[in-house]
């Protein structure tokens, strides 16, 4: 029933769209800009100001998106405002965007919308989108050209009415460190058909601990070729056909664009809608998702990767700023003390004053700030009208409008000070803390909330705006409120938000502060683990299923990599050997296989010899036997059969010694049955020309100085050794 309804609605939508293909081509390009990210990552700042109006290198973020849309040839933009919609609309009305000749900006306002899905459903109801549209959120910075992607989308649409969306992707380094440090996001896995560029699989929350992803086997069955990527980055710029809106209406449970819509479409094989990808190469595109990407994108802008959207180009009525040597951007009317040191890649806004001996580097300072003397600012984002008194230290922090820092205050890395907070004299704000005039909203214990900011977050945000004025006024005077909150030093105003449980761990991921050393090493270790897992996987694949013993896993727990490797190697060789025995494989082939294993594990031929010998002995001991002599007989047989294999690894005397040592080890540990037979088997090996007398003698010599316990077998074979010695002396 539901499916039927869906189909009917989609058909209706399709009919509406495909009335006249030529008409479509002439249709001016429209865009939907979501001026709300429906997340809480930028709290507490977003409690007072919408995310899209937060300054990014002294220009509100939404301007980058709008400027790009205009340049990309979009004729009409619908800005969807939800949280703080009044602020967004007021801002846009006073900006120059409403007065552009060939570019219309219209706002759609709604207060009870809690997700991107709801927003799109509302837009569908308003029936304003008539053709293909660009779907983007107001926190995306890009300078790519849409022409080609749009062209591809249209051509695909003509051929296949089910190609409803083209997702813009970009290559990135596959390493999780880079991903983490550049974007603060998890790894993203995509499966793409290399020929048609169709997206087949999308997973942005891959379970890292397992190191595996699960693909539907139908995916492999249905597609002739498929390429899996973990080196792609989602730009969150989509070109959509109007059907997308109706799809959202039909599936009223779609909330999140990627998690529900994209995955939903990929799984839904009834309708057969398809999503395609378009990869951009040299141009820039990134979305500001959290504090870390805010930091990274700001720096990319300062380094001009986003050209022409850089501070010294007035792309949206921003103030005139000049680029000076070493990447310093300075607006007009800056008062700077002669002794102040302003380092490279710094932006200083209009009318800011900088006192003597202050040092500023890699930072963005907003307009009308007053910075005292002996202040240290490093890698920080200071917004407008901030007062920083003498001797303060700020490293890797975000300081919002109107904050006052009294003399000597220190902000540790990762601190976020929301609007108008006052930090008391010589107060040290601990790392990663967030300070706001507003009290932290009570945490709802639903997992869903953080995932896609549902009901509660929307309403909390809204009610808190109204509360702002009285709350902050009250705070200035009331003593009682200070009782239950950590004070911010003498004269400090504001609450330090407590970090929600489990958040502590994650805090460093999304902060503006650089990733601490220990986390970095952790990450790179995790990466090594990944590689290990890969080898382990390969083990599982190359041997036939039954041979992976359970012990594999337990032994895998050993943390020493090299030991692990040799253990795996031995297992592999043993498995190969056993299979060879069972299936009567030619010796030459076994040698070949063992050699390839040796290469892939990077082992020496001594290791091979040891492993082969180990497997042979293992086989001997497994062969049913009733007495020691029978075991000896079996061993002799096996050695005779496989001596060629063993010999091919015994190039030098060292390898022969290795075999003896290995045998010794076995007798002590895994195959104690052999211990009484040690001397005899040694003799057999000597007889078969596998071991030379030199090797045996050397081994005996080496053992001379060892502990008594180690000498057990030397003793046992003393006679034999004696005989060997005499024989060699006679020869001399």
């Amino acid at each position: 029933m539901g499916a039927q309804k869906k189909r009917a609605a989609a058909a209706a939508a399709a009919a509406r769209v495909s009335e006249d293909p030529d008409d479509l081509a002439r249709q001016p390009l429209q865009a939907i800009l979501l001026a709300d990210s429906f997340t809480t990552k930028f709290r507490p700042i977003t409690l007072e100001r919408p995310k899209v109006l937060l300054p990014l290198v002294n220009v509100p973020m939404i301007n980058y998106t709008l400027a790009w849309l205009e340049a990309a040839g979009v004729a009409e933009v619908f800005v969807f405002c939800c949280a703080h919609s009044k602020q967004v609309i007021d801002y846009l009305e006073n900006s120059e965007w409403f007065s552009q000749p060939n570019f219309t900006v219209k706002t759609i306002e709604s207060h009870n919308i809690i997700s991107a899905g709801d927003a799109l459903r509302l837009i569908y109801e308003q029936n304003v989108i008539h053709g293909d549209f660009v779907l983007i959120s107001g926190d995306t910075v890009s300078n790519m050209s849409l022409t080609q992607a749009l062209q591809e989308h249209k051509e695909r649409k003509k051929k296949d009415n089910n190609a409803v969306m083209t997702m813009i992707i970009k290559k990135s380094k596959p390493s999780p460190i880079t991903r983490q440090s550049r974007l603060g996001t998890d790894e993203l896995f995509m499966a793409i058909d290399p020929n048609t560029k169709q997206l087949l699989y999308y997973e942005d929350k891959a379970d890292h601990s397992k190191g595996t992803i699960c693909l539907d086997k139908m995916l492999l069955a249905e597609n002739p070729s498929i390429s899996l990527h973990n080196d792609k980055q989602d730009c969150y710029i989509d070109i959509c056909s109007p059907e997308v809106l109706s799809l959202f209406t039909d599936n009223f449970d779609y909330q999140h664009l990627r998690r529900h819509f994209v995955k939903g479409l990929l799984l839904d094989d009834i309708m057969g809608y398809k999503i395609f990808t378009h990869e951009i190469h040299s141009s820039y595109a990134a979305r500001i998702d959290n504090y870390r990407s805010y930091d990274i994108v700001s720096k990319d802008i300062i380094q001009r990767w986003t050209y022409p959207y850089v501070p010294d180009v007035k792309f949206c009525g921003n103030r005139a700023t000049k680029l000076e040597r070493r990447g310093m951007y300075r607006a007009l009317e800056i008062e700077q003390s002669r002794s102040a040191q302003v380092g490279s890649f710094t932006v200083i806004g209009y009318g800011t004053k900088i006192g003597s001996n202050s040092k500023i580097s890699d930072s963005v300072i907003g307009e009308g700030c007053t910075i005292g003397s002996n202040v240290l600012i490093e890698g920080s984002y200071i917004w407008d009208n901030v007062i920083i008194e003498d001797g303060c230290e700020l490293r890797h922090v975000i300081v919002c409008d109107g904050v006052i820092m009294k003399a000597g205050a220190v902000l540790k890395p990762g601190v976020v000070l929301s609007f108008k907070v006052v930090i008391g004299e010589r107060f040290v704000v601990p790392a990663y803390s967030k300070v706001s005039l507003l009290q932290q909203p009570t945490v709802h214990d639903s997992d869903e909330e953080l995932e896609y900011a549902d009901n509660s977050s929307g309403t909390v945000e809204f009610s808190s705006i109204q509360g702002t004025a009285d709350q902050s006024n009250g705070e200035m005077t009331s003593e009682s409120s200070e009782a239950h909150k950590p004070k911010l030093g003498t004269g400090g105003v504001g609450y330090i938000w407590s970090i929600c449980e489990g958040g502590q761990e994650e805090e460093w991921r999304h902060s503006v502060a650089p990733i601490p050393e220990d986390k970095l090493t952790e990450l790179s270790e995790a990466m090594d683990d990944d590689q290990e897992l890969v080898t382990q996987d390969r083990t599982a694949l190359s041997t036939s299923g039954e041979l992976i013993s359970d012990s594999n896993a337990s032994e895998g727990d050993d943390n020493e990599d090299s030991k692990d490797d040799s253990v795996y190697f031995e297992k592999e060789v043993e498995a190969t050997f056993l299979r060879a025995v069972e299936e009567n494989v030619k010796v030459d082939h076994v040698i070949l296989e063992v050699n390839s294993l040796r290469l892939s594990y990077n082992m020496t031929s001594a290791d091979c010899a040891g492993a082969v010998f180990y497997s042979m002995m293992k086989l001997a001991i497994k062969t049913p036997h009733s007495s020691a002599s029978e075991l000896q007989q079996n061993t002799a047989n096996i050695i005779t059969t496989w001596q060629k294999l063993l010999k091919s690894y015994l190039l030098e005397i060292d390898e022969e010694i290795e075999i003896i040592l290995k045998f010794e080890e076995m007798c002590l540990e895994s195959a104690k049955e052999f211990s009484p037979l040690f001397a005899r088997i040694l003799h057999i090996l000597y007889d078969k020309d596998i071991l030379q007398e030199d090797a045996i003698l050397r081994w005996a010599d080496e053992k001379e100085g060892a502990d008594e316990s180690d000498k057990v077998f030397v003793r046992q074979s003393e006679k034999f050794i004696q005989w060997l010695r005499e024989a060699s002396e006679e020869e001399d």
Partner: protein
Amino acid sequence: MPDIQALVSDLASKLRKRRVQGSYETARLTAELLCAVILQHKEPTTNGAASLIEAVRRVGEQLIAANPVELAVGNIVRHVLHIIREEDLSPLTDIVGELKLSAEDDVEDIAEDENSQKSSATTDGCLLKPPLLLAVFEHLPDSATACQTFSSENIFAGKADKSAKKLKSELIKAVNELIEDINTCREGIAEQAMELIHQNEVILTLGHSKFVKEFLCAAKEKKRSFEVFIADGAPKFEGHILAKELDKKGLKAIVITDSAVFAMISRVNMVIVGVHAVMANGGVIAPAGLHVLALAAKKHDVPFVVVASTHELCSLYPHNLEVLLNEMRCPSELLNFEEFSDCIDYGIASSSSLLHVVNPAFDYVPPELISLFVTDIGGYSPSYIYRLIADYYSSEDLPPQQKPAS
């Protein structure tokens, strides 16, 4: 009637967003816009020229501030101001002559006046050369009404306004000539190709300049045979485009890298390049890489010829160029962002990344390295440029215009 301010801000925003680039394009658009400004200017009865100058200057300042790097904007603005000043002076001499004749001519004058005022069509016809003005008017959909108001206003203003009207029509004529000059400057330059390019010569150029292309093609059309080395002009590699275009014209082209210019210069008879702007001292601002080429040419005494049109003539002196008049372009022209994203990583403990990419668009080539300028009004040596500037611009306009640019 289109608001002139809207047109101005439209061009200004195009300049700001770097959507209009290149001296030819900017010069043409600026000239057309200024023509519209003059056309729609409602002047007071007295001192019309001064208010016009003020109006043009105001517009000019906006445009220059929009993208100070595009020097052609300032050049055209200054040139138009210069035209206004010149025209403003000429009526004075006319009036002296007119006074003598005024007694007899009075009746005739009025008749003539009314004639021109009644039918705006005729006004159009006599004021404006059709093909050119059409180009202007395409940007001004309602220009006919503009003319109408302008002439009907004059009806009421009556005879007192006559000199002002005359000034205006003269101005429009002059500015149209300027636009025509800009449009035809390439041919003017190309005409001189035969004198400079000789049989079996080897020419070296860098990047892609339309002037150079026309210049070379003109010589080719006249059956001169020669070959051209093209330095590819990193990072934009526009030299490749030039190579393609020359190939279509049947010219032998050899592409080399920018860094190979010194290795190749000994085989070259002449270097011909296009530039971004010619400075008042005879130096040029040119695509990055030209200074090296000029030095190489100097070392081997190869003539270094610059083709430039008069609208590239800039009245500024090059002080502190690398900071003030350079454009730092996008680093992704040099490096693939994805490939280097792990080097350009700020998230890792050491607060700033060590790898930076700087991509300046321009070079400054001092006058000593330049042998000859080939302009649409003839060939000049670098030391003569200041004279040309005196011919093209009025000294009064220099100081205020210099401010926003510097």
